[in-house]
């Protein structure tokens, strides 16, 4: 760096010094940055270099507290630091910081090229957990339906549609239970592999996670894909080999699925 460096050159140089602190050229630091009465140029710049990763790692831990618990703080920070090196933030908002983290964990898993059946369970669990936490994070502040009327039991099926702040997912592990065990500081250990399905819906600004059976999940998936309730019920009957009458009964009966999910704000009225 020289005294005639342009603003653009200076900023590109500092950016590199922040993201790759070990590669920062000591001579360039001394010719660009003033020492203070107590610190040399390198020590002054190091304040920014230290805080760059620490600041963002704290944000990652805020966003993925259960994953941080599962991995342990040190290992979580190692993964998150490598993630930030691979995918530095490109957004003005910290809300986007962790958006690619689950995908990054998938891409970089050491058994990436192994058959699915041969992939390691603990890695699958970490990825599941990251996906679940990202979903919760996104649902927290997504456009929702608060402040508007909800349907009632009298609303006909034809007028029921899923509310905007609604998400369903399927996992290899019971991640929702694990997450909430972390929340209540129960110090959970990694659970046994067991497929879990969840619906996440925001009601009164709280993100509610409901555990789903396979027929429930199949039904909601069909609704998400734009099917009507009648078609989705028939799809469940066919896919899960349950008589359509039983499926319909389960949907409509007093205190049945329909009533519970209307009360849980799964639906809004068209």
């Amino acid at each position, binding site marked *: 760096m020289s005294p005639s460096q342009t603003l653009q050159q200076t900023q590109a140089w500092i950016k590199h010094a922040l993201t790759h602190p070990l590669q920062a050229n000591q001579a360039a630091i001394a010719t660009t940055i003033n020492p203070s009465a107590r610190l040399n140029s390198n020590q002054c710049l190091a304040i920014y270099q230290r805080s760059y990763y620490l600041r963002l790692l704290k*944000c990652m831990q805020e*966003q993925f507290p259960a994953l941080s618990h599962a991995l342990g703080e040190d290992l979580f920070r190692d993964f998150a630091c490598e993630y930030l090196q691979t995918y530095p933030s490109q957004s003005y908002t910290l809300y986007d910081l962790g958006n690619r983290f689950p995908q990054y964990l998938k891409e970089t898993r050491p058994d990436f090229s192994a058959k699915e059946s041969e992939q390691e369970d603990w890695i699958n669990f970490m990825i599941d957990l990251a996906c679940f936490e990202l979903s919760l994070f996104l649902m927290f502040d997504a456009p929702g339906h608060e402040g508007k009327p909800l349907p009632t039991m009298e609303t006909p099926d034809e007028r029921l549609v899923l509310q905007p702040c609604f998400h369903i997912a399927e996992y290899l592990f019971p991640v929702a239970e694990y997450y909430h065990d972390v929340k209540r500081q129960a110090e959970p250990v990694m659970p046994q592999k067991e497929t879990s399905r969840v619906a996440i819906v925001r009601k009164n600004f709280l993100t509610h996670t409901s555990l789903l059976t396979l027929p429930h999940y199949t039904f909601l998936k069909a609704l998400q894909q734009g099917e009507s309730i009648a078609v989705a019920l028939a799809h469940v009957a066919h896919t899960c080999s349950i008589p359509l009458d039983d499926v319909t009964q389960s949907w409509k009966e007093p205190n049945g699925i329909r009533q519970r999910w209307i009360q849980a704000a799964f639906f809004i009225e068209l």
Partner: protein
Amino acid sequence: MKDTNLGLGLGLRSTHFNHILEHWPQIDWFEAISENFMDSGGWPKHVIRQIAERYPVVLHGVSMSIGSTDPLNFSYLRKLKALAQEVNPVWVSDHLCWTGVQTMNSHDLLPMPLTEETLQHVIARIHQVQDFLERPLVLENPSSYITFKHSTISEPEFFRQLCNETQCQLLLDVNNVYVSCFNADIDPVQYIKDYPCEHVIQMHLAGHQHCGTHIIDTHDRAILPYVWELFRLAWQRTGAVSTLLEWDGDIPSFDECHQEILSAKPYMQGEFDSSKLQLPQLLQQETLSTPVDFMVPNIMENAVLEEP
């Protein structure tokens, strides 16, 4: 006292949302971090709407990156403008800094080399932003840990020229003055005397961490006595402007924060005493500068598991 003096306010923090909505405390005004609300479709947006109905609010941004050599982010500016139209802030502020370049965002408030090139660059961008937002921009002096060998303009003079050329207004962060001046071996009293105080419409106060060799701007503790004394000088020279406490790490209760900013009152009068700027011998291990994790919402707190 200037017409726009809002009084003594607090930075709006999510940890205080429930307290505010429940008690509607008697406080003069709030400053909201723009980025926490501009994309919100949930709880934060619901809160800011209600608060803006009851209190004067200003928007304070951390991501405009007015000094970056990357193009201005008009998607960001559109969202900022929409938020401003919705909450009707008394003004909109950000920092004289850059946050990233070559599409990367450091989420830090990085210092600028203060040169003629930088001055012209920032002037042009302030004009663009003000034209787009259709309001004056208010710019804050950042805390900094480095200065550049090729800088040719002092920071107070830089701000003066920005104001003269763009009619932007200023947010004088008194704590940042102290931090930056200590780190750069500059006299903070002279800084305030040189600063274009006639353009200041708001001041910030915050706590910092003194590490002996340098000071870190941590916003995680009470305001230190020597910063209060510097505030007394700034209060006199700005002619009394809206003053606000920023507390971003280890945030205490709303009432404690409120009490802290009310402590400004004795410093709004009396003679400035430069001998009170003497530093006590404080040597503390460095912690994080300008924390940002307070901007990440606590999702776990708002998550509920429904029993099957």
